[in-house]
């Protein structure tokens, strides 16, 4: 198992490296505009452009530029924004990370619990009316644009029903965990629910489909022949083997979540996470900030995938020897 983890860690590092190269190429090497102009933002003065060129080594060969960029990001950590007159990028990113983590991990836990529970119930109740209902909920879940759903939630909780049913909903924004679990969770409640609703449906569907397939396998029949009760067969045998698919699906989705849905949710609910930071810098075309955000988000995703790989191997012993 250790060797497996080691190999996976190496693969993760390589992927990070490749992503950094890709991001770099996108920002520095796409044809059409002068990279200096991009970084310096709109309407930059000539001297700003010159500063940019020096700071990023834009007159040097491309791989040197890459190394310079990496140095700014990780070694000297002095990446500054030119649009916002020299404000340092990295502290902003650093402050935004806990927000995104809170949002993403909380939502993930919620959707996994919800999705798995619904999936197990749908399997146990297969053939009855509950089955198609859960399927429909799942399809609707993945068809709703997440930002739109967030706005609708806001509409209801902040405006329309704010004075009656939802008076306990605080105004939009984030409160750090250090200020107390209550306020922290309260402000994250609706963002969590919005994200969870989206994903819980698919997970229920996928799990149900996997489990129903598993229930037709020989080893389920064998388990029954051993005299084991039906619930234990369902949970210990069918669910356990089906979780493997869920885990790998989760790996894919977590990446999409961090990079996408989480970003949109942060924007809609006013949470100052990496997604919101990216969005704000989008409207300004503040390239250094975007660059840093994208790289840190990608870093998240790669780490998450690495953890998912480990969990996968723990769940499915057949994979460990690969």
């Amino acid at each position, binding site marked *: 198992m250790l060797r497996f983890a080691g190999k996976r860690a190496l693969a993760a590092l390589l992927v990070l490296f490749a992503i950094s190269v*890709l991001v770099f190429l996108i920002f520095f090497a796409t044809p059409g505009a002068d990279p200096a102009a991009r970084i310096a933002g709109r309407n930059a003065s000539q001297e700003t452009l010159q500063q940019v060129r020096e700071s990023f080594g834009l007159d040097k060969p491309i791989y040197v530029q890459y190394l310079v960029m990496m140095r700014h990001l990780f070694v000297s950590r002095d990446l500054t924004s030119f649009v916002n007159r020299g404000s340092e990028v990295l502290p902003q990113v650093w402050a935004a990370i806990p927000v995104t983590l809170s949002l993403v991990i909380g939502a993930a836990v919620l959707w996994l619990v919800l999705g798995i529970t619904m999936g197990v119930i749908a399997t146990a109740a297969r053939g009855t009316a509950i089955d198609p209902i859960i399927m429909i909920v799942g399809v609707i879940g993945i068809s709703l644009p997440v930002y739109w759903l967030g706005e609708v939630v806001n509409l209801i909780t902040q405006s329309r029903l704010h004075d009656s049913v939802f008076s306990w909903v605080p105004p939009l924004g984030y409160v750090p965990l250090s200020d107390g679990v209550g306020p922290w969770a309260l402000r994250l409640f609706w963002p969590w629910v919005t994200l969870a609703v989206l994903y819980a449906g698919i997970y229920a569907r996928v799990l149900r489909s996997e489990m129903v397939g598993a229930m037709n396998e020989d080893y389920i029949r064998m388990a029954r022949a051993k005299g084991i009760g039906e619930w234990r067969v369902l949970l210990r045998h069918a669910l356990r083997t089906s979780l493997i698919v869920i885990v790998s699906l989760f790996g894919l989705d977590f990446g999409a979540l961090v990079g996408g849905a989480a970003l949109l949710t942060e924007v809609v609910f006013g949470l100052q996470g990496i997604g919101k930071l990216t969005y704000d810098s989008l409207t300004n075309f503040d390239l250094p900030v975007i660059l840093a955000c994208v790289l840190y988000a990608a870093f998240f995703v790669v780490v998450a995938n690495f953890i998912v790989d480990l969990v996968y191997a723990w769940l499915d012993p057949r994979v460990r020897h690969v």
Partner: protein
Amino acid sequence: MASLAVLILVVLACLAAPLYAANVAHTDAFASNVNGTYTLNGVTKPVLEASTEGLGLGVNPIGPTWNITTFFLGADNQGRDVFARMLYGGRNSLFIGFVSAVICCVLAGIVGVVAGYFGKGVDAVLSRAMDVLWAFPVLLLAICLSVVLINTTITVGPITLTSSSLLLPILIIGIIYVPYVARPIRGQVMSLREREFVQAAVGAGAADFRLLRRELLPNVLPTLIVFLPLMTAINMLTESALSFLSIGVQPPDASWGTIINDGVGLLYTRPMVAIAPGIMLAITAVALNLLGDGVRDALDPKARLRGSI
């Protein structure tokens, strides 16, 4: 199938946008109409009416009239007819979603087949490239590309892409999802390659290209066809997200995403501007997903795809 009917309805409605705008609602969906008026039941009133909220100082666009002849869903803050605009926006959303899905499936088909069939070195290179591309969170990648390309004009040979071209979102979205489709295709080709009929053909001395066309393609095609509605739905949602973030479809063009974006400012007063396009998106995506399910069941009930499953 109900989903197909719904889909056709939506598509037709959106295609008919110009007809509706010109003949039914008599409105221009794109020009600013701040001082415009509308007529209902013989009474003519301004489109942006005095606000009754707060101190009564600002102006609000009117809400839905629920009258199909004029301002069915109300006006936005530029005085434009939301319903007409939504129909126009739908054309772009559907167009971008569908064309990028086609591009994605075609490219993924090529990549998947080549990687799966030739294996070894070719596969290694292609698979690593796909992995890297996919490891990049999808929306972030789209954001990066859009940000960089949106304000520039690219000239590649005879093709010139201006920043307002619809081709840009189409290409970007089409490309970023290629790994998603290519991976199952590659897996399928690899297992097909081991099957007897392929080995028999190889043994009979069939040339590579002939093999690809005759044996592999007919088996891979149904998978791609199943992916098409699925990817259209996913791409539509992605495009709308990008447009919502103002880096997708650029004004003066509209898409459902841009209209929702417009509607955010009016959310608490005139929610319909933001809600209606979202509902249209949801309905279309549900119909596409169900269609994909149906097509998959018809073509290959054993296939297991992610997405709508």
